[in-house]
């Protein structure tokens, strides 16, 4: 068989296209849900940490460290194969979503918290002197400045984590990679893999370019 027949087989690609397209939708949906939940949870934890309640903060730091130290695939496998032991079965989608959300939450909390700490103490003092209470100071004065500083590292981290959506293929989630692989094994032809690869590039090259732009726009100087 010629190279094109093997790797760019039109007949196989035609079969694969609708399935990879379905996988594409699943990947995008998963990525969006992970970003929304992960960033919200991370910001929430950083806000809770700002209250500086010792016992609670130790717990937050431990959770953050845990999800920064464990490989995402290990978390996914653990949730998918472990939770049924508690009588709780998660679908591949739910297990992947929950795992990546926890990982993004941990990284986002760390970055938001570093941002909050980086706002000079004078900002707190000034706001309190103006008669603002703790929460309005945090939300109206400190967080807007902190979040702006955290945008470049947060963007890069978020991109790195949503590329982990492909890990869902390991627990039977039909995202791009798994859909492509299923056609490969049905027809013993690798063309769908190249189609899947192209789908990832179509999805992530704009995202990476956007990340590059954000980095220069909000230059993160040392």
């Amino acid at each position, binding site marked *: 068989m010629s190279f094109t027949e*093997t790797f760019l087989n039109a007949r196989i690609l035609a079969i694969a296209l609708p399935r990879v397209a379905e996988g594409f939708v699943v990947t995008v949906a998963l990525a969006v849900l992970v970003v929304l939940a992960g960033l919200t949870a991370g910001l929430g934890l950083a806000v809770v940490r700002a209250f500086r309640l010792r016992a609670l903060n130790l717990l937050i730091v431990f959770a953050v*460290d845990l999800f920064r130290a464990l*490989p995402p695939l*290990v978390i996914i496998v653990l949730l998918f194969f472990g939770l049924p032991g508690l009588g709780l079965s998660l679908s591949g989608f739910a297990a992947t979503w929950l795992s990546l959300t926890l990982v993004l939450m941990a990284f986002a909390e760390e970055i938001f918290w570093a941002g909050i700490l980086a706002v000079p103490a004078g900002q707190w003092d000034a706001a309190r002197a103006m008669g603002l209470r703790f929460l309005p100071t945090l939300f109206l004065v400190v967080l807007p400045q902190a979040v702006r500083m955290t945008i470049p590292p947060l963007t890069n981290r978020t*991109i790195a984590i949503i590329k982990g959506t492909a890990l869902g293929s390991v627990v039977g989630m039909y995202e791009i990679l798994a859909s492509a*692989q299923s056609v490969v094994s049905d027809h013993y*032809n690798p063309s769908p893999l190249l189609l899947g690869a192209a789908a*990832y590039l179509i999805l992530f090259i704009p995202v990476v370019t956007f990340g590059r732009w954000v980095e220069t726009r909000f230059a993160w100087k040392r």
Partner: protein
Amino acid sequence: MSFAETFLNLAIIQAAWPILMAGLWMTVKLTLVAVPLGLLGGLGIALLHGAPSRWVRWPVIAYVDFFRAFPPLVLLVLLYAGLPFAGIELSAFVCVAIGFLLNTSSYYGEIFRAGIEHIPAGQKEAAYSLGLSKPKTMLLVILPQAVRNVLPDLIGNTLEVVKLTSIASVVALPELLYQARQAQSVTYNPSPIVAAAAIYFVLLWPLVRLLSRLEHKAIAGR
């Protein structure tokens, strides 16, 4: 079955311990291959990025963006399942090494590049005026300062590389996660996966702690 028997079944963990240790050794070997390869490749990329000709610079930027956009698992599956169709049979270990070189060198490359670009031009001019050659200036003046400045990012990326070795389980390379999955599927008990997660956590937690300190220092010093 009780919670402990399901998730922390000591008899099962004990039985699985030898293969878990064999898996850990494979993870260590993978790390020892992937990290130096990635660092060297990344350094090469960063140096090429500083080339005066755009015919060198642009392909380098394209390379970096391409492999940052490509999920590493997809790259790995493409190499492992795709190349045999082209008549190239590589062992799982070699596939993983190549995939990691392509992926991690682009991340390390971006870090080195940022470090080099942040060194003031005066350093280079001073070195030239002292009679140092171009390579000597780079090696003895620019790089030592650049590496020190981006050390937290280098450590952070290295942590990500170690965690990433877990995806090698997908191409049946018997590293820690793969062995834990094997033990789990034989015993129908998730304890080996819990044990593997604990091993990852114990080994990587110190690195996460160190990183968290360095990151806070970097942000506080801005």
